[in-house]
């Protein structure tokens, strides 16, 4: 079997979180799940919290004057406080729940952007962005006549900070940047970005934390950005819940973007007034059950400690690099492991990523093959797709070993020569 190539005392051999905590992984012991950047598996704690809400506290929050509705309201508020604390926001009411990062970015682009961006302004994004942090801004620019600018990348797919600096000016109205690239894992040096943006502009600074919040410690209050968006399902929580944290000052500049129940103060015949933050931006019955589930996932991560999560992924990433050196013709995209989240985005000789994913699937290895909702990046890489293996708290050396074996098999099938 595989011999370990990493130093003793690291955590790469074993998972940080026991597989038995994750019912799907426990049920399928041979499954090698390497697609956590797409969505994470869910621990019992999250599933139990969902069942617990529906079996003990299910009522519509903020509405009934009866005890059960109060219990639902309390559970929802407690979930908000837990998630805000986890992301380093002292004021829970600055966290607005959404369906996920995509809805969060659309919220900011509409609630803030529509009122503050006009022709002549400039919106800056990067070539690393997920479509969810690209299209809302691209379309806002189209609607308003603002200029849409794209920060190019270094040869190893990091944001080119010099190019970013050169694009910033008094005309810059929005800077929207990913915290961690979903496609190649590059970690943005947030402090450098914040310093550049604040020195040179009064722009709104938005961070896409979909791949940041699950994998790195986040302290919103000291980060220096205006908005930070995240998705619950990538950080052990259920699908359909996520959110965006903003500063009070920036929230005050936002206009409601969805209208309906819960978000109003008073509805007159010809006009209406709005509820306070965060409800002003949460129209309709809130997704309380999934918020409660997400809070359980967050407590699970807190118990692991996010610094340990990062250390685990980095150690496993370095182990993967050692093992993947056995695979001729493999090219791994992105910066060195120390500047990357637990993402291995790669090409294997001339084998198409789609073929790789099918062959790996036969080995029980789940990876993503495709453009990763990052077509601007794919164009710059000169490919239509890459193969991506991604790690999380339950990943271990067996996952990497199976990946290597399956890649060697793919090479044999295709007789790759390069």
């Amino acid at each position, binding site marked *: 079997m595989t011999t370990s190539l990493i130093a003793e005392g690291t955590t790469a051999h074993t998972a940080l979180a026991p597989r038995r905590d994750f019912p799907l992984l426990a049920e399928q012991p041979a499954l090698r799940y390497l697609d956590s950047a797409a969505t994470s598996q869910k621990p019992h704690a999250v599933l139990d919290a969902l069942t617990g809400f529906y079996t003990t506290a299910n009522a519509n929050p903020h509405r009934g004057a009866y005890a059960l509705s109060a219990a639902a309201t309390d559970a929802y508020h407690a979930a908000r406080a837990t998630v805000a604390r986890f992301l380093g926001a002292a004021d829970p009411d600055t966290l607005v729940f959404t369906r996920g990062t995509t809805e969060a970015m659309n919220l900011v682009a509409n609630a803030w952007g529509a009122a503050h961006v006009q022709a002549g302004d400039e919106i800056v994004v990067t070539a690393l962005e997920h479509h969810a942090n690209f299209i809302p801004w691209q379309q806002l620019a189209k609607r308003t006549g603002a200029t849409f600018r794209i920060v190019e990348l270094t040869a190893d797919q990091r944001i080119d900070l010099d190019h970013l600096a050169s694009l910033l000016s008094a005309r810059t109205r929005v800077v929207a940047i990913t915290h961690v690239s979903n496609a190649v894992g590059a970690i943005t040096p947030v402090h450098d970005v914040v310093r550049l943006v604040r020195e040179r502009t009064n722009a709104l600074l938005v961070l896409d934390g979909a791949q940041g919040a699950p994998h790195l410690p986040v302290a919103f209050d000291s980060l220096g950005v205006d908005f930070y968006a995240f998705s619950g399902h990538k950080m052990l929580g259920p699908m359909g819940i996520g959110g965006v944290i903003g500063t009070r000052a920036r929230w005050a500049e936002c206009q409601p973007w969805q209208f309906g129940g819960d978000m109003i103060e008073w509805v007159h015949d010809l006009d209406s007034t709005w509820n306070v933050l965060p409800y002003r931006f949460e129209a309709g019955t809130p997704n309380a059950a999934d918020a409660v589930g997400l809070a359980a996932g967050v407590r699970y991560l807190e118990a692991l400690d996010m610094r340990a999560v990062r250390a685990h992924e980095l150690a496993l990433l370095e182990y993967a690099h050692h093992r993947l050196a056995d695979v001729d013709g493999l090219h791994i995209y992105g910066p060195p492991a120390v500047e990357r989240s637990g993402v291995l985005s790669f090409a294997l000789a001339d084998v*198409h990523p*789609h073929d790789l994913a*099918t062959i790996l699937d036969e080995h029980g290895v789940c990876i993503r093959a495709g453009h990763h909702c990052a*077509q601007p990046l794919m164009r710059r890489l000169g490919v*239509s797709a890459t193969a991506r293996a991604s790690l999380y708290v339950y990943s271990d050396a067996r996952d990497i070993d*199976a990946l290597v074996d399956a890649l060697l098999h793919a090479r044999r099938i295709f007789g790759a020569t390069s």
Partner: protein
Amino acid sequence: MADARATGTLPLAAMYQERILEHFRAPHGRGLPAHPAVRVAERRNPLCGDALRVGVVLRGDVIDAVGFDGSGCSIATASASMLTASVRGQTIADTLRLASSVERLLHGDSTVAAELPGDLPALAGVARHPQRVGCARMAWQALAEAIAEGAEPSPRATPAPAAQ
């Protein structure tokens, strides 16, 4: 478990037959026909970002020339290669009948395999991988679209409706 599945005669080996891989490594019909009357249609796979174009030149109701370009996986490329090898010189009616037989094969109807020319029966293994059926269909859909395009006046090489 994984080894037995991967090395036996199970779905993977059935799909990645040598005939498929040969077409992938050295495809027939690579390149659109250089002819002023070429009709071109493109299909995109929004899941993986692949795009294939098929071009045909008709002489009466016969396919005089056919070719493809673009990027695709082994299944998409092999299917396009087999397409060009099997429809050149055929009538439009026979070609559309063939396309519909291939479609049935890809959906698991192996009874049509016997009537398929050339290496096309090798595509039968794709039916066991539902997420790859779309790859094998791309060229055939583009071909049908390219043939239909000339039936009424329309601009050449309009992009396929990309399901984004």
